[in-house]
């Protein structure tokens, strides 16, 4: 519960219309897209300026209240869920694109700008903002930065981190920090900017973001390759990379996913195939032509069952659409969809597929796997029903065993979704007690009171 005095202070500082206290509103502001997680905040605020954010942080500081930042709550690890109650600070209404700087190729935005809105705004000026997480139509930029979101273009263009040039944040004591800038090079002191990216709201609250823009690729070619064996698809990925070809997109779908997609959209995908790869190369027309030829050759050598090349842009779009419906199609099959984010060095991709098949069999589950094969980033998705306790137990055992091996191969427990609440245990295994201890010390340097999004990433000492 929040003290009456804290409430009054906030009302005075922000005005009543920016506070939300009705039970029905609070009830729907304590979830994100992570299955099974929900908490109810005591109060929600909608600041409209940096000044507002500072005032909220000051009240939280003075009253020692947990403060959880939230954008559109599309996260997949529980980052924006207020597990300790307190205040949720919704940044959606700070959603202006402040500047598109065509001389420096940067854009400066408020935290609540929707990812796709930024993409479209810069595209109008002939520029390109590549990070394209699955939820780009509604996800916010600050959410992307705090979770270091990836997307389909990660292989060639990188992830959100690679585009952040500067951040302005409010820290837990109410002070402002500005880190980075429009300079391409910047080695002045500790790289706070890089520490804040992916910090899941545990170190500060973003109030302004400057991102790098690039010129868009002139042309692209799209391929669809089918495989009789998923291992072969994994090998194809490794071979393509080894041949020094970096496609802009290299996505995989397994048999279960292919069949679900086909049930859903009916575009004639081959149901009997074990896997398919969707590959896109882009850039200068001459380079694209060269890479396309090499790509076809490799796919043939490896033993792809069929290779199809998109005839035109429309054809290419149809193929990309098929991939984009993967999660959709899987999600329709069962009430609960557990989506994971295991990532391995690309040379281990084929082994990972074999392991997933074995574990699916062992734990008697329905699993569809798709993901960013080129990044070694897979989304093995368990289709289950949260009311079935036994099935949920088996699903968690499946992931436990999978992650154990992924870590043994030098992989990571999260490629792009973050740790949040859901994967604290896995992270501890990945970085060990020493790693967790350092993270705790960093956290307390920024936030000695522990009010910033407590309970996320690692288990706190009190827990």
């Amino acid at each position, binding site marked *: 519960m929040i003290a009456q005095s804290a409430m009054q202070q906030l009302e005075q500082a922000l005005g009543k219309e920016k506070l939300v206290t009705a039970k029905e509103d609070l009830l729907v502001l304590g979830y994100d897209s992570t299955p099974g997680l929900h908490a109810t905040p005591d109060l929600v605020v909608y600041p409209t300026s940096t000044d507002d954010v500072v005032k909220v942080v000051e009240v939280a500081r003075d009253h020692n209240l947990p403060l959880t930042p939230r954008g559109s709550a599309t996260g997949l690890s529980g980052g924006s869920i207020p597990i300790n109650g307190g205040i949720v600070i919704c940044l959606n209404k700070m959603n202006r694109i402040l500047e598109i700087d065509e001389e420096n190729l940067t854009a400066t935005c408020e935290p609540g700008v929707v990812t796709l809105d930024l993409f479209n705004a810069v595209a109008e000026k002939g520029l390109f903002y590549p990070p394209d997480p699955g*939820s780009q139509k*509604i996800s916010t930029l600050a959410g992307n930065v705090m979770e270091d979101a990836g997307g389909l273009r990660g292989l060639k263009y990188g992830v959100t981190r690679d585009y952040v040039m500067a951040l302005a944040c409010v820290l837990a004591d109410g002070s402002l920090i500005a880190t980075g800038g429009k300079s391409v090079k910047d080695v002045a002191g500790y790289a706070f900017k890089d520490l804040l990216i992916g910090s899941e709201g545990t170190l500060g609250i973003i109030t302004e973001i400057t991102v790098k823009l690039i010129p868009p690729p002139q042309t692209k070619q799209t391929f669809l390759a089918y495989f009789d064996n998923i291992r072969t698809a994994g090998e194809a990925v490794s071979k393509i990379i080894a041949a020094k070809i970096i496609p802009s997109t290299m996505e995989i779908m397994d048999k279960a996913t292919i069949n679900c997609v086909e049930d859903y959209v009916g575009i004639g995908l081959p149901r009997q195939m074990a896997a398919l790869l969707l590959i896109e190369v882009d850039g200068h027309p001459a380079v694209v032509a060269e890479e396309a030829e090499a790509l076809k050759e490799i796919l043939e050598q490896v033993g792809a069952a069929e290779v199809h090349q998109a005839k035109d842009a429309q054809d290419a779009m149809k193929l990309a659409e098929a991939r984009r419906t993967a999660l959709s199609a899987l*999600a329709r099959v069962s009430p609960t969809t557990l989506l994971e984010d295991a990532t391995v060095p690309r040379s281990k991709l084929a082994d990972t597929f074999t392991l997933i098949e074995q574990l699916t069999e062992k734990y008697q589950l329905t699993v569809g796997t798709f993901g960013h094969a080129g990044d070694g980033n897979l989304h093995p998705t368990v289709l289950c029903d949260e009311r079935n306790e036994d099935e949920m137990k088996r699903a968690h055992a499946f992931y436990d065993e999978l992650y154990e091996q992924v870590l043994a191969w030098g992989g990571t427990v999260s490629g792009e979704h973050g740790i949040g609440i859901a994967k604290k245990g896995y992270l501890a295994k990945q970085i060990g007690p020493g790693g967790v201890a350092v993270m705790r010390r960093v956290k307390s340097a920024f936030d000695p009171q522990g009010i910033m999004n407590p309970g996320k990433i690692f288990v706190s000492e009190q827990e």
Partner: protein
Amino acid sequence: MSDQQPLGNFTELDAPTYEDVLQCMRCGFCLPTCPTFALTGRERSSPRGRVALARAVAEGKLDFNQAMKDEAFFCLDCRACTTACPSGVKAGEVMEVCRAQVHQQLPAPKWQGTLRNLVLKRMVPNPALMETSMLPARLYQKLGIQWLVRNSKILKLGPTWIDKAEGMLPELHRPLRPQLPDISPAKGEKRGTVAFFLGCVMTLLYPEVSRQTVKVLNHQGFDVITPKEQKCCGAPHLTEGDRETTREIAAFNLDLFLDLDIDAIVTDCAGCGAALKEYEEILAERKDLERLRLFHEKIKDISEFLCEQGIRTEALKQVDKSVTYHEPCHLCHAQGISKQPRELIQAIPGVEFREMKEASWCCGSAATFSLKFTDASQEILDRKLENVRQTGAEILVTGNPGCHLQLAWGLQQAQMPQPVLHITELLGLATPD
């Protein structure tokens, strides 16, 4: 959607099932498609938020309270979220069912309930009574009282919705149902026989539009049978939460139309089409499943039907106009009919088709929403009008009487030049008499 055991704080009759709400994985893909979320930025007024509230009721964490009532009726039921949802959640339908809960759990004052029952249970299911009830409105226009009322600005004194409702009223003609012959014969080479499902709003407010529908169907080679006994499709009852009356009407219409020897049942009202296609679900526990399937198969929106059959263009006249198209929610989202109207428009010789931005974004009409929430409805409408304006098209085409009323009124208020035409009116212009 009803279960044997009451689900949480829902009552037994006409409640969502637990599966309906559990299916939501809260990915948020619905958020950018929801007009009421765009308007308010409020999570509980989004499809994801509404389903979460319904889930809380189902899990006994929330009473079916005033907030549930507010959201059930604030939802436009435009179904844009259904189209956008990856996991097949039907938030609009969940809210529609919740409207039935409102009447069970939070009944209105007695006089309102009596009035509601009079209109929904007695008047709307009775076509003759509906036609008679329109007589005063026609006299009102014919005798010049409308002119007097509008010029005296007397309506400005009452609630906003009365003024708007009066302003929306199109020029009224005699209802079409009694006028149409039982069979209107095909012209040229006959291609089949269809039954015409003539919606209440079409026959009462847009009789001349539906006359064009029959003309176009005849010209395209179809005999058109119009069963005079047909009743309202039941959509008004669904949207007002009276599902029982819908079931009674639906059962009647189903038997009436299935007894005819016809190739299809055609309607020119997107709202009716959507409701008729839902009979299969609404009557699932009352009627033979095979008959329900058969009925569902035969229901066709006019543009869906003409595209399936292939439109004969050789005798069509030139229409040298630029045309843009607004997608009725109950056509594109509820029935998945999106390409067909555009194909028809482009098939007319001389027509230049101009796509508008956000063509499938609701116009803010949404049954009685435009009168209950006049301000919100206006904001949604303004967004639509701006998109129409940007096309610079000479004609705005749509396919549903609700949208038609709202758009025609909005264009007039904004002093924009475009007339609103139903798709069969546009086809009618190209069709020789």
